[in-house]
């Protein structure tokens, strides 16, 4: 593992998750109907990472 991870490497994944989550939260506010499901999944994208961390082998 690179000992000098750049700021981007540290925050890249969290930043993408944050943007996706934020977009989902706002999108869900602006739309109605089935597309709400997609917005909700985007809002909860961080949960997928948590689930993946829980089930993966060390």
């Amino acid at each position, binding site marked *: *593992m690179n*000992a*000098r*991870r750049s*700021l981007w490497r*540290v*925050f*890249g*994944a*969290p930043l993408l*998750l*944050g*943007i996706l*989550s*934020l977009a989902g*939260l706002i999108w*869900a*506010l*602006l*739309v*109605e109907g089935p597309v*709400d*499901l997609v*917005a*909700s*999944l985007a*809002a*909860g994208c*961080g*949960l997928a*990472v*948590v689930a*993946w*961390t829980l089930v993966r082998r*060390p």
Partner: protein
Amino acid sequence: MKQDTIRTWGWIHKWTSLVCTVFLLMLCLTGLPLIFHDEIDAALNPDAWTPAKPGGERLDLDELLAVALDHRPGEVPIFMSFDIDRPVVNVTTGPTAGAPGPEMHFASFDATSGDLVPPADVGEDVMHFILQLHTDLFLGLPGMLFLGFMGLLFVLSVVSGVVLYAPFMRKLPFGTVRRDRTRRLRWLDWHNLLGIVTVAWVLVVGVTGIINTLEQPIIDTWKYRELADLVAPYGDQAPPEQFTSLDAAVARAVAEAPGMELQFVAFPGSGFSTSHHYAVFLHGRTPATERIITPALVDAGTGHFEGLREMPWWVKALSLSRPLHFGDYGGLLLKIVWTQLDIITIYLLVTGLYLWWKKRRQALPPPGFGPADRGASEPGPS
């Protein structure tokens, strides 16, 4: 990041977290049932009510208001609101138009007959207790402002946690949980991972919560700044003794606002109007505009239409803060997501306390420089 900088951010993270943790735990726990308040209300109060004349013509609003006041002699109207999915008009009355919440009385009426609609109030006391605790700790405005300050500390705690995440994760891949190390390190890794993947949601809920605690000052400022020109001509005059037709006032307001729907009416002297006007609140019909309300003001003495008053951006921000804080706007899946994120926040608060307690007991060196954490500074409370 320099060692002094890390120490400073660590100090901010520790103290902002410690001060607000108990209150945040209370807010997260009471917030859980509030996410599902609609479902809980519906389950406890199955709607078996039907209107006296299904599909029949509705009484006009003056008739309904007269019926409501007959049920509450000596009281004055404060608000009138309208159910979306059934012909029901809700009237809030009180000893004065400016009466505080506990002195208000709420009753619902069949819009086709004027009959009282049985209140759907099973479990209402419990939900009201939870909401009140969550909103102001039963202390009114001081309680709201206090919780707003706790929310501010929480946001600072989150921001400082994000800053401290960088030195901690410099040598670790994203998503690392060192399961084969000590329990403390394992908890620390989970604390960091859960904190960073939920940071957007946590900040949204935190910031909108702070905005919500400013509701009363925001509404007061709107009244005294934005409606000042309407209030000024009346000076210290008493409110009109005889109100003009409410039905006509509402009809005029609706006619002046094409593309908008009636939401509720605030009567003269109430918290959302002046002492001389009906404030007829309308909202848009699209998902993007249905939460933005616009008041139309009608002189309650003469019936003169004063005009639509678009809310300033800071009142619109308040309107949007409510759904974004409570998570009750995007359907069941969003509510489930909200619940999971709320539970994760509870876990973050508990693990933060645990990490602080363990570190305090073990008297470890400053974050990131002890032998147990070599190569990994600690963003949790130290």
